[in-house]
């Protein structure tokens, strides 16, 4: 006897009714969506911080420039005790790697000693690395002041050094380090350059807490031997680092007489592998924490269903009025459904805004890059809307199925 209203009209109408109903009960509506707010906030915060941490790791690795391989004596999975101490590397081993292996862009030997650096009245315990300019090349490590070692200084093992920023900060106040002479343990040393800040390494160690000297100077004056602690090899990114690693391993086995069934008495670390491992650990942690956060989103949805069910009972008379006035069941159902969806979307939006500012602040505090991922935000928002639909459906259906006579009589 009369035409039905079109669906779009219906949604516009019910949306208006839903917004009015929400506006009439601001506090109740806010409490209803608190679960969603917290859920979306938690998920987005965790994912964003996780992405930031992953980016941080990635940035550090790519900051190293080329792919770095570190060749160390001994085995990483050492069985401890028992066997003889594996022999250290000699300078000849370093020269041997440099020439025959393809894809190697730089090779640097490294000797290491601990010493206390003293300048004027200030002193600072640090690590002294004996190496060459190739070490800086391999790690793409720039200077902010001064110059690098000359060939002559490297050949002769002159007592000159480059300072990391941590050392500079702790020894020099209001004075340029270049040109000064500081004491390292029992020797004195002229500062010829200052290294750029490199920040934390993959395992949290401070890369800037170092003094770099020519290899021969450290061997002669600090360690007192020709032993080499590690060989740092930079590989061309165009080459497969696993192949380069295998070539070096083969060469080392030959030089150290490891054949037949004998186990390698040296280990090669690949910076790329380490970075990959770190990334996957970071990613896994992010996923786990996010999953826990997602549970709170689900709990938020149950909260919405709970309040909507109470609301249906509380508003039975209102539903009766609407039905008597001529609302069809579909319209009442749609109103409650739209109410639930609008509520949870508002909750989601509040959660997103909170998460944005929190992650912005926390990223700065944790010194990781702030990575705003639109997809994460859109997904979290869409999910909160979906929760509204899922958990709003049951109460809405209950509302729509009420008998108008009983509903009007409801006290």
């Amino acid at each position, binding site marked *: 006897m009369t035409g039905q*209203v079109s669906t779009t009209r219906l949604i516009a109408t019910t949306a208006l009714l839903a917004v009015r109903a929400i506006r009439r009960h601001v506090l109740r509506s806010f409490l209803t969506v608190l679960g969603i707010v917290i859920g979306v906030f938690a998920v987005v915060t965790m994912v964003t911080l996780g992405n930031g941490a992953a980016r941080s790791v990635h940035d550090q690795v790519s900051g190293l420039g080329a792919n770095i391989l570190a060749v160390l004596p001994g085995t990483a999975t050492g069985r401890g005790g028992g066997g003889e101490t594996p022999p250290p590397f000699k300078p000849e081993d370093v020269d041997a790697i440099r020439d025959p292996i393809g894809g190697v862009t730089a090779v640097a030997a490294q000797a290491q000693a601990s010493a206390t650096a003293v300048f004027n009245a200030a002193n600072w315990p640090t690590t002294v690395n004996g190496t060459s300019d190739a070490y800086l090349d391999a790690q793409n490590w720039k200077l902010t002041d001064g110059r690098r070692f000359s060939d002559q200084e490297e050949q002769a093992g002159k007592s000159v050094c480059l300072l990391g920023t941590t050392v500079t900060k702790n020894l020099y106040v209001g004075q340029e380090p270049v040109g000064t002479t500081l004491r390292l343990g029992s020797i004195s040393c002229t500062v010829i350059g200052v290294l750029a800040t490199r920040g934390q390494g993959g395992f949290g160690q401070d890369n800037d807490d170092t003094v770099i000297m020519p290899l021969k100077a450290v061997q002669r004056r600090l360690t007192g031997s020709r032993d080499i602690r590690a060989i740092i090899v930079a590989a061309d990114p165009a080459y497969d680092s696993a192949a380069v690693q295998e070539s070096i391993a083969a060469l080392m086995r030959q030089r150290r007489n490891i054949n037949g069934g004998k186990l390698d008495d040296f280990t090669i670390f690949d910076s790329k592998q380490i970075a990959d491992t770190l990334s996957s650990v970071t990613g896994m942690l992010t996923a786990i924490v996010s999953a826990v956060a997602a549970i709170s989103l689900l709990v938020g949805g149950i909260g919405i269903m709970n309040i909507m069910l109470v609301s249906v009972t509380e508003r039975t008379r209102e539903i009766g009025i*609407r039905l008597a*006035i001529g609302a*069809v069941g579909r319209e009442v159902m749609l109103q409650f459904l739209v109410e639930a969806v609008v509520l949870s979307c508002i909750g989601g939006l509040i959660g997103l805004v909170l998460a944005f500012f929190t992650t912005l602040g926390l990223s700065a505090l944790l010194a990781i890059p702030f990575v705003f991922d639109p997809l994460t935000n859109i997904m979290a928002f869409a999910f909160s809307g979906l929760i509204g639909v899922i958990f709003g459906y049951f109460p809405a259906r209950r509302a729509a199925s009420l008998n108008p006579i009983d509903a009007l009589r409801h006290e």
Partner: protein
Amino acid sequence: MTGGISADNPEPLIRLANVTKRFGTGEAAFQALKGVDLDIEQGDFMAVMGPSGSGKSTTMNILGCLDVPSSGSFLFRGHHVEHLGRDQRALLRRRYLGFVFQGFNLLARTTALENVELPLLYRGEDKRVRYQMAMAALDKVGLGPWAKHTPAELSGGQQQRVAIARAIVTHPDVLLADEPTGNLDSERSIEIMELLTDLNRVSGITVLMVTHEPEMAAYARTIVHFRDGLVHSIERKAA
């Protein structure tokens, strides 16, 4: 005199013929209506009276398309509507019927204007049309200046007038009033009855009103008495 179909008027606005209504099943079954025949003419002002359990509320629910008869026929404007489904009855209510309740039944925390607009929303009217029609209805009941007030800020008489404005905003054929003065003092009751009489005379709306009070029934043109699930008697006043 028992209610019957008047032969001189072949097609009234509403015709109930041998309508029965049974609630429950088996032992607990209750026969609320036992064969009601009733004609309601276009433009009538009918008061429905009778003790509790006489079947008057059940009849009003059926006339208001809120409920369906168990058997018998219900013709509205010549169409059989006794078998209509839930949604079709809702559309019928939306288009042709207006309701006024004893307890006013306005939406709380909602302005008079928004309350009156509600039926128009379900009809899908534009915002501007809604506003104009709702204001016209409020003016008709003398509450134009109170449009922005919520029920809590209005007196009982005013609330009932808002409810009447809501019932007539869609220009219905029939206004069903269930004890509209039941919650009001006698002075407000007279105001409401005068308003209903005016709507009936001037706007030509057919009014069906349940009441317990003979003074209120006195405003009606026809008084139907129910007893034991049947129409017991019909009084018609001379025009």
